[in-house]
Structure formats: C-alpha cells, structure tokens
C-alpha cells in the first residue's frame, strides 16, 4: 500500500514537470530556406504556414524579413544579436533556437519594432511579455492569448499579416485591399 502511494506521488510530481516543457522544433525551416531572395522568402512563409510550431529561430528570421525584407544574419546567434542591437529583443533574452517561440517574447519584439508605446505601465516600465501581449490584443494584432503560449506556423504568418495591417491603418504602408476592422472592435492606428 505504501509502495503504491509512493509511486502515485512520484507520478503526480512528474506530471507538472512534463506540462511545463516547451515545444521543440526538430528541423527548423531556417536550415533549408533562410535565404533573403524573393523565392526563398516566399518558400519560407508558405512552408512555415504548414508547420505545427514556430521556433525562436524561424520567428526571428520571419520578423527580420518582415521588417527589412532581408535577413543579414546567417545563424540564430546572429539574428538574436541583430535584434538585440536594434533594441527589439531585450538584452537578457537567452532562449534556444529550436524552442517554440512564446507569444510574450514575440509581443515584446513587435511592440519595440513597430514602436507601439502602449499604456501607462508599458510607458513607465517598458514592454514586458504580459503587457505587450495585452497591448497587441487591444490593437487586434493578437488574438486572446497567454504570454506563455506558442504559435503554430499558420498563426505566425497570420500574425505578421495583421502587423502589416496595423502599419497600413497607421499610414506607414500602402496596400491593395482595405484592412478589415471587425464590427465593434477597436482597430486603431494610434497607440
């Protein structure tokens, strides 16, 4: 009886540990399609849309392509350093390349890259994952999210499309089709 209880207790202790494990991407897309030429970029975006998880490496490559239409870095360390140098990623960021990118990490990067200032807390303390996610939700760039969630590939592609819509509404970009404001939602270009 005592033995059985010990086993159950051990299993009970082990379960939360497995739940906290972040998703890993075994074969990052950046290993095969990390080029900056138009054909490679299109291949990257549309193959990424078919994948189950977006890794940190893929997300940062995509973010650089979206911001600059080119990715000068050749590896993950170079991408992270480029983003840190530009103040897009916090200096303390140290997550591995193959780990699924969290919505909080990407929200901070997007807020910094798109110069979204946010509310009082963000203006005073800077962009944190929690408040950056809330700000992007308010701007209708993010869906209802937790900072700890990750993205499927198609969700990341969709998110980049929404970020472009935000720039169009703000007047920074031009587009062919009018970005959609959902009925009753606060779509705004001001932050």
């Amino acid at each position: 009886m005592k033995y059985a209880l010990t086993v159950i207790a051990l299993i009970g202790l082990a379960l939360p540990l497995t739940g906290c494990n972040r998703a890993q991407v075994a074969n990052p897309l950046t290993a095969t399609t990390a080029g900056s030429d138009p054909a490679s970029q299109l291949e990257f975006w549309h193959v990424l849309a078919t994948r189950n998880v977006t890794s940190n490496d893929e997300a940062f490559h995509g973010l650089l392509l979206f911001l600059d239409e080119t990715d000068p870095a050749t590896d993950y360390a170079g991408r992270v350093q480029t983003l840190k140098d530009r103040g897009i990623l916090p200096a303390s960021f140290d997550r591995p390349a193959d780990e699924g990118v969290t919505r909080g990490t990407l929200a901070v990067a997007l807020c910094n890259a798109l110069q979204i200032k946010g509310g009082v807390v963000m203006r005073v303390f800077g962009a944190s994952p929690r408040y950056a996610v809330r700000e992007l939700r308010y701007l209708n760039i993010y869906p209802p999210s937790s900072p700890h969630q990750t993205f499927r590939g198609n969700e990341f592609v969709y998110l980049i499309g929404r970020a472009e819509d935000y720039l169009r509404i703000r007047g920074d970009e031009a587009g062919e089709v009018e970005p959609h404001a959902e009925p009753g939602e606060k779509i705004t270009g001001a932050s």
Partner: protein
Amino acid sequence: MERRFYFFVMLLSLAVLASPLTAQDLTGEIVSVRGMVQVRGSVDAPWQMAQKGAAVNAGTEFRTGPRSSVVFRIEPNQVVTLDRLGVMKIDQAVRLASGQVKTDLSMPYGRNNYKIEGGGVEHESTIRTPAAVLGVRGSEMSTWHDFDTGSRSKEHSADFKPRNKNNVKLPQDMQVDEKSPDAGSVSKEKETVDTDNNQRTDEERGLIVNRPNGNFQTDQNNKGYRPQDDHHDRDHPISSGSNM
C-alpha cells in the same frame, strides 16, 4: 419501333457527350504585381515569380509575401486581387452554353477582393475557404480567412449568397456573434433552413429566420418581433475559426 428506340438512345448519348464541350474555358492575365508574388500553372509545376501580362487559367495558383499583392483578370470582366501573405487557386473558370460565366476560386488563407467590372453577363462565382464556400453574384466583395476569426466577407455592392461547408445555401441574414459564449448554438440556429419559406408572409419569414426554434421575442416598439442581429452593416462572418 426497335430501330427508332436505338436511334433515340444514340441521339441522347451524343447529346450527353457533347454537353461538356459547350462549356468554354476562360483565360485571363496578371494585371499587376506588387512585391513578392509567385505563380504556378498546376500543383505539380514549380513556383515562378509572377510577371505582369502572364496568362492565367483554371489550375493557376498564386502565393504572395508580406507587403505584396497580385491583381489578375479573368475573362470577360472579373478582377481578383490577392493581398499579402495569401494563397489562391483558380479551380474553374468557364463560360457555359447559356452564356453564364462560372468561376470557382479557392483560398486556403489570406485576403482577396473580387470585382466584376461592367455588367451584361450573368456570373456564378464561388470562393472556397477552409471554413466556408462563399457564393458571389454582384459587383464587388472582399473575403478573408484568418486563423482566429475563420472566414469572413465584406460586400461592397455584391448580392451575397452564403453557403455552408456542404455548399448548401444559407439564409441571407445569417449572422453569428463570435464573441457570444453560445456562438456555436446561435450559428446552428441561424443556419436552419425553413422549407416552407415561400408560403409565409414577410413578417413570419423574419420570425422564422431569426428564431427558428419558436422562441420569438417582442420588442417595445410593437414591431412584432425583434431580430437577434441587426443586419445593416453588410458584414458577413461566415464561421468561427478556432482560437489560436
């Protein structure tokens, strides 16, 4: 008698064989390209960068990158724009023997604008997304499929014919509030098709469409019924997607 019967059967067979030939394939061309756009003639063909003036026809597929879009024209007067980060394929583009133009487009994700320039030709156009089949008759409509909102459309001046996944026509004023906690049940309720529709008065029809389960509500202004969703914004959420 027997010879006449065989002759009739033969004529009928010829008519059946000849009927597909009366549908004429339509072609078109790429009108403009902005940013990074690739195109291919079929699912097995390699992707190539899209060029203005290139021919398109049934089977042609497009994909766009960020800050990119492609505009293509299908005979005689249909103009389709695929906006940023989207994929679209022309499944069918034919002119039927009756003169009607039939176009079938599929869009796994992205956003498009479909416009008919000029009139005089009857169109039957559908845009398929993973969540819905959107039937269009009219002059202009935008459709998009996102991963949290599902498929949505916004008509500019089109006569909009919503259909469900099985291509069955739905009531015109089907509308689902996606933020409602019971959006699923409301959607089901709204998709109810009243088979006795032609025998009802307008007021009865409104009651059935808005409350097909019989739980009608009366408002304070004595209008007889209160539609659950006003339908004047001409915005048509077709289905709810899964939350990301």
